[in-house]
């Protein structure tokens, strides 16, 4: 194989100029573009959350109109979910899946190019609504009618942006499935796939099943607004709650679309730094698949307060509680992987352990909210804001950031600055808890979510939360500095990079040549991941 690599190296002529990126069919370049795009969107969405936290720093309205505040809440969520988290996951998949399964590239390289380049257009549509009559979407990222239909000229832009994002995601998902099913190296059986690849296959099927449902739902919003239909208008025989069922039939699997790639990253990092094989590989695969399967049967726990019949409430309560079982299995497997290992705590491992602790906190509050009668109190308060931010920020985002630190030396050929990486981890961890933990308290004490102003008993906690928020926002600049510094130079990374790293991607040079595995490697039990 080394001969093949050298051969590649010799003819490692990349296209030059802007054309290299615009017309790219190379999985590594497209992966880089996805990751850079996600990072930019992370800061765009983050800037909006800074506006939110500035307004909430004190009681009273200081800076923005309530309508603009609602736009900030709405677009912050849309940008973070569709612009930062999902593209970051796809970026990691693009970079790593071909190198992990011994494929020369993605199965459908031109489609790969298209699914990336749709994104900037979709977000141009979405963000342009800020300059339109009636402003940007302000009805929440969940787009519930009839409220969302009160939006001015921005509505069709919102709907078409969602359509574009859906098309992009579905094409990305098809590509990943086609790649893994058809382009595995000889000997790379399904049960030898790295867990990250497994997580992504399952995510890809979730995307294909869920995104068209969302597209259908928002299309019905469009026809209700412009073509006189009444899908969601009771006066015309429709039902506003039907939209919520459609939305959350997409929306709950979407949670796992976001989280499974991060879980996949964790499953790569922990064995590496524990210097010990992943515990319970088979049960990990089955647990991931059953989480994904169950995610289609729990959607209505997002809408317990709409007034469902008792039997419906009971069904969705039991189904929701049952998801705790496979999720617990995953956490326990990661713990067992660490158990009696020989651990070191480089930045990727710190982020992975951070996920174990803080994602679990989000899991606990999730279990509490799954209990329907109690959810009647928790619903639409800051308690749920605390819950899903614990899942998303120190859960998913920490997982993805761990992945970035883990693979950055492989991508750039240089080690990142470990001191700065650790500083990034610790400042993020401390500030994220100051930011989100007190939200549990104010939520339980009765502060509703999505309000621009609050009664004064919540003032002290909100000030603390805002300070945590500003500190977390600033901490993320460290990440940018680490990445830039690492791309520009640093201590040269070895091929294996990490002492405990196993798998095909670590047999390639760091950085890998433009084309890798043009001759497929042979995979045996000894060289496989697990």
């Amino acid at each position, binding site marked *: 194989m080394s001969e093949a690599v050298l051969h590649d190296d010799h003819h490692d002529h990349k296209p030059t100029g802007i054309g290299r990126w615009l017309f790219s069919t190379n999985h590594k370049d497209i992966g880089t573009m996805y990751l850079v795009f996600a990072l930019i969107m992370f800061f765009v969405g983050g800037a909006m959350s800074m506006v939110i936290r500035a307004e909430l720093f004190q009681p009273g309205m200081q800076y923005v109109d309530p309508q603009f505040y609602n736009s900030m809440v709405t677009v912050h969520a849309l940008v973070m979910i569709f612009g930062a988290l999902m593209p970051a996951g796809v970026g990691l998949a693009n970079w790593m899946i071909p190198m992990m399964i011994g494929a020369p590239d993605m199965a459908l390289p031109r489609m790969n190019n298209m699914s990336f380049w749709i994104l900037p257009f979709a977000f141009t549509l979405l963000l342009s609504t800020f300059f339109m009559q009636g402003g940007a979407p302000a009805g929440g990222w969940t787009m519930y009618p009839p409220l969302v239909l009160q939006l001015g000229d921005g509505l069709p832009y919102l709907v078409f942006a969602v359509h574009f994002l859906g098309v992009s995601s579905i094409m990305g998902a098809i590509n990943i499935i086609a790649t893994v099913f058809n382009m595995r190296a000889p000997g790379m059986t399904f049960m030898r796939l790295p867990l990250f690849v497994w997580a992504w296959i399952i995510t890809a099927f979730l995307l294909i099943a869920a995104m068209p449902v969302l597209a259908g739902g928002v299309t019905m919003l469009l026809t209700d607004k412009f073509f006189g239909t009444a899908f969601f208008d009771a*006066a015309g025989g429709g039902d506003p709650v039907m939209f919520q069922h459609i939305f959350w039939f997409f929306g709950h699997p979407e949670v796992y679309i976001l989280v499974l790639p991060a879980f996949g990253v964790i499953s790569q990092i922990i064995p590496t730094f524990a210097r010990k094989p992943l515990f319970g590989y088979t049960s990990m695969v089955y647990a991931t698949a059953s989480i994904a399967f169950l995610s289609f049967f729990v959607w209505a726990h997002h809408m317990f307060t709409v007034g469902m019949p008792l039997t419906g409430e009971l069904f969705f*309560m039991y189904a929701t509680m049952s998801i705790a079982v496979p999720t617990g299995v995953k956490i326990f497997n990661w713990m067992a992987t660490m158990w*009696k290992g020989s651990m070191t705590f480089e930045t990727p491992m710190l982020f992975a352990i951070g996920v174990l602790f803080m994602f679990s906190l989000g899991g606990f509050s999730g279990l509490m909210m799954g209990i329907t009668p109690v959810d009647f109190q928790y619903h639409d308060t800051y308690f749920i804001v605390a819950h899903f931010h614990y899942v998303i920020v120190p859960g998913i985002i920490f997982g993805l950031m761990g992945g970035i630190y883990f693979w950055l030396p492989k991508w750039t050929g240089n080690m990142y600055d470990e001191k700065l990486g650790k500083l990034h981890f610790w400042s993020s961890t401390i500030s994220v808890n100051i930011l989100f933990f007190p939200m549990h308290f104010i939520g339980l004490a009765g502060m509703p979510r999505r309000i621009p102003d609050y009664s004064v008993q919540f003032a002290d906690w909100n000030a603390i939360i805002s300070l945590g928020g500003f500190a977390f926002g600033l901490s993320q600049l460290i990440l940018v500095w680490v990445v830039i510094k690492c791309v520009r130079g640093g201590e040269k990374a070895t091929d294996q990079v990490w002492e405990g790293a196993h798998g095909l991607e670590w047999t390639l040079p760091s950085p890998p040549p433009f084309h890798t595995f043009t001759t497929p490697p042979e995979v045996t039990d000894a060289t496989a991941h697990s």
Partner: protein
Amino acid sequence: MSVDKLKQIVLGVTTVSLFLMSGTALADYMNVLNLTEGVTPTSKMVYDLHMLILYIVTVIGILVFSVMCWSIYHHRKSKGAVAEQFHHSTAAEITWTVIPILILVLMAIPATKALVFMEQTGDAEMTIKVTGIQWKWKYDYLDEGISFVSTLSQDSNDARQVGSGIDPNTIENYLLDVDNRVVLPIKTKIRILTTAADVIHDWWVPALGWKRDAIPGFINDNWTYIEEPGIYRGNCAELCGRDHGFMPIVVEAVSKDEYAVWVEEQKSMQLAAAAGADKEWTKEELLAKGAEVYTTNCAVCHMAEGQGMEGLFPALDSSAIVNGPASEMIMQVLNGKNMMPAWKDLLNDTDIGAVVTFARNSWGNTVKDVVQPSDVKAMR
């Protein structure tokens, strides 16, 4: 370990962490930490369930995190740990699948009981209907024929304007006070129907122990049984547009006797208001009344000076409709248009006549005529 002991420990840990944050006003923070126990059988049941699950997850959390911390401390390379290479244990995997299932079943039993209890909406002694409207609540006492609209109190509303310069700390019950409270009798099973006129709202008073969406075109039924007299405050809990944060709820629970007195008062007030429609009003009376009605009901969208909001709410100042024929303006006020609600259900003839007169005589509007409440009554 007894539950009481555990309570002490949890309380102790919380207190210490609070102390780190601030040595002062500890009592204030303690009020803003946990769910309210509330004043109904439902809310108490929900509170107990909440605490039970909180204790369960706290214990699980402590156990799991302790194991992780122990492992992180002891199984590290710097302490000379050598990695074992096991990667499978059927017994362990069965254990950590079965034990969580058992815990979940234990949690599901009281949860199911509570849910079944909460859904028993029958046998109510009285019924009120709550209608969410952007951004106020309308209450109809279906048995007594009383109905009124409840909006954010004026001092909160003044203070919450962007750059008002008024310190919210100086306002009593800032954002949690209204002009008309919902008065309810204690020790009575009350059925509360929720619905909405425009978008989805959510009626939530934490002390009652639940919240329920108010959905246009649908009616949800709920019930409550308030055990103690008092004033209980809440908010709209479902994002419903620009002023979602400014439509509070205030329930005043009183004894059955006091409630009967209040009902009689309300009935005579409504009769008096209806009589107002038949009398001839002077322009000054109408302008004074209209200014009041405008501030309470209209200024939230059309703004204090009738200037509206670009792209969202049309201006009334120099508007073609306000300066057009009175009958067309009255029709629009009565029936609403787009986001504007149909005011015929919310305001009486006197209020509508007064506010129409007020708008036609204010700002840059030029018609300056008088619309009598009887004109409005005739057009209903």
